[in-house]
């Protein structure tokens, strides 16, 4: 099966293909091939290093969208035990673009809320590519309130290009649903840990995407607007997204620099999909630590501190 090749990996993929071709030839007939093969192998190794050493923001966006990148449901499956998925917003329907579940991480009982993309086209159509409708956000809000009522910490996984921009989504109050979640999260009387695992597109990401901690995977992004939408506004051309991406300060490193993220989880060279097990282990450890730190904090203090975090965000003159 051919591996999914990201745009910036193409030179590497071409070399790898060439190598595979050479290896199919009979070395016994043409012994000079051996030199060529080892030369090519060295070249591939070198390119591998330079290519992934310092990914540009746009390259990170591609990694964050890689179809084999671990998704919310993978984290739930690999990190948590005794999972009970909760469905529906009690008002309209069950939006599969958001997953809510009671789940246990290393003995700690939690409420997990995450955007849920599919792993293939069929799943993605069912889950609307991880872009929620209002009922998805309302399902998430229900889960938040439930967690608050029963003292469960909330762990969220952020992975969406954004709230779904459709007619019915607007009709049912997309903006209202997001706003309600923001107000709810801001004052929720239980710990909230948000983890950026892939894409963090605008208000649809924020609606489950902030709290007492923000942890970012190295190649995850979190942005006020997707680079494509930004490019289509400022350049009137969505294909110029690679130029827009670096302007938006949306990488994990940018978020650390701006004081918005608390911790970055490094990914294996090439991205989380190259070695998911190591990423699961890191996320489990970091989230577990954060849960431990927040577990004993009195709720008044916890919420006050969260308010202080929000208050402090912004750069202006006066």
């Amino acid at each position, binding site marked *: 099966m051919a591996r999914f090749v990201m745009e910036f990996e193409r030179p590497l993929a071409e070399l790898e293909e060439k190598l595979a071709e050479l290896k199919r030839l009979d070395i016994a007939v043409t012994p000079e091939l051996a030199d060529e093969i080892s030369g090519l192998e060295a070249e591939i190794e070198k390119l591998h290093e330079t290519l992934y050493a310092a990914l540009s923001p746009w390259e990170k966006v591609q990694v964050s969208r890689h179809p084999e990148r671990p998704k919310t449901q993978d984290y739930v499956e690999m990190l948590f035990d005794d999972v009970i998925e909760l469905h529906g917003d009690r008002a309209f329907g069950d939006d599969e673009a958001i997953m809510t579940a009671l789940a246990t991480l290393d003995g700690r009982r939690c409420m997990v809320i995450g955007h849920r993309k599919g792993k293939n086209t069929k799943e993605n159509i069912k889950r609307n590519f991880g872009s929620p409708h209002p009922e998805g956000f309302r399902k998430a809000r229900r889960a938040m309130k439930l967690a608050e009522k029963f003292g469960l910490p909330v762990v969220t996984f952020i992975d969406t290009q954004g*709230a*779904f*921009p*459709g*007619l019915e*989504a*607007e*009709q*049912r*109050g*997309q*903006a*209202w649903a*997001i*706003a*309600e979640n*923001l*107000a709810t*999260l*801001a*004052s929720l009387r239980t710990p909230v840990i948000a983890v950026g695992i892939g894409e963090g597109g*605008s*208000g649809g990401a*924020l609606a489950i995407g*902030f709290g007492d901690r923000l942890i970012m995977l190295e190649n995850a992004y*979190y*942005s*006020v*607007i997707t680079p494509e*939408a*930004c490019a289509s*506004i*400022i*350049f009137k051309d969505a294909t110029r997204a690679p*130029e*827009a991406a670096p*302007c*938006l*300060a*949306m990488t994990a490193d*940018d*978020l650390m620099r*701006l004081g*918005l993220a608390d911790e970055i989880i490094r990914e294996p060279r090439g991205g989380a999909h190259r070695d998911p097990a190591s990423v699961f282990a890191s996320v489990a450890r970091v989230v577990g630590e954060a849960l431990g730190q927040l577990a004993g904090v009195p709720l008044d203090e916890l919420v006050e501190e*969260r*308010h202080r975090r*929000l*208050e402090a*965000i*912004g*750069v*202006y*003159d*006066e």
Partner: protein
Amino acid sequence: MPISDWFKAREGRKYTTTSADAPGDLPDGVWVKCPSCKHTLYQGDLDRVADVCLHCGHHFDIDAPRRIELLVDEGTFEETEAGLTSVDPLRFNAAKPYTESLAKAKAASGLPEAIVTGRALVGGHPVVLGVLDFRFIAGSMGSAVGEKIARAFRLAKREDRAVIMVTRSGGARMQEGMLSLMQMAKTAAEVGRLASAGLPYISVLANPTMGGVTASFAVLADVIFAEPGALVGFAGQRIIEQTIHQSLPKNFRTAEYFEEYGMLDAVVPRGELTTTIALTLDYLAGAGVPAAAEGAACRIVSAGGET
């Protein structure tokens, strides 16, 4: 400049139309053509009727100082945080530098930032008022706008005032990236804190209110009013059309549309807005009294009457 100077300057101004599609063939500024019914109107008449077309009721877009003038009890507006303005934290430069957009916005609007906030009386009620100005980078919310909104809510809480927000905005300000997005959470948090103090918050959605402004403080109000014909929503019109591959219904996402779908309390003509807000505050301003006021328990109303 302080808003008081602005009001002074305004008295001697040349009339300008605030409509985007101003007619080119009419004498500059004195006459305007209604974009809805195409009647030609004298700006002096419009000034007397809150910039609403005399023929068809079309609501002309108005800027923040004019809104304040229309809304508050005369002479009671006292601007707050006038010196708080945007900087360029990301050194944003795509197509055009953010600093240039800011300079242009300041020159075009005569305002230091996209929102004007201040203390005022509305129908005698002490309020903190915030009004977004669309001329300033589409009334977008960056760090400075978010901070001014947060401070407006905190001021109201400190001084026991209601909050009124009038929104006209394209959404979060792209040029400040995540700092802008996070203002949505920051302002939403402040709405919650005012609510826990039992103080009323009324919002007025004016044309247009979109994106991250709609999806944060604007629709979290206790009572949401909107102006006739105002465009309200989350996603951009073009993005929706591209997503669903069809053109949108004509009244899609107008104030009236959302009233029909139950998302806001009432569409209120501009001429009635001040009295409607004042009357609403008459009802809500007593809400600071604890819910279980003395004697309340013995006034349970049942179907058969008071028991």
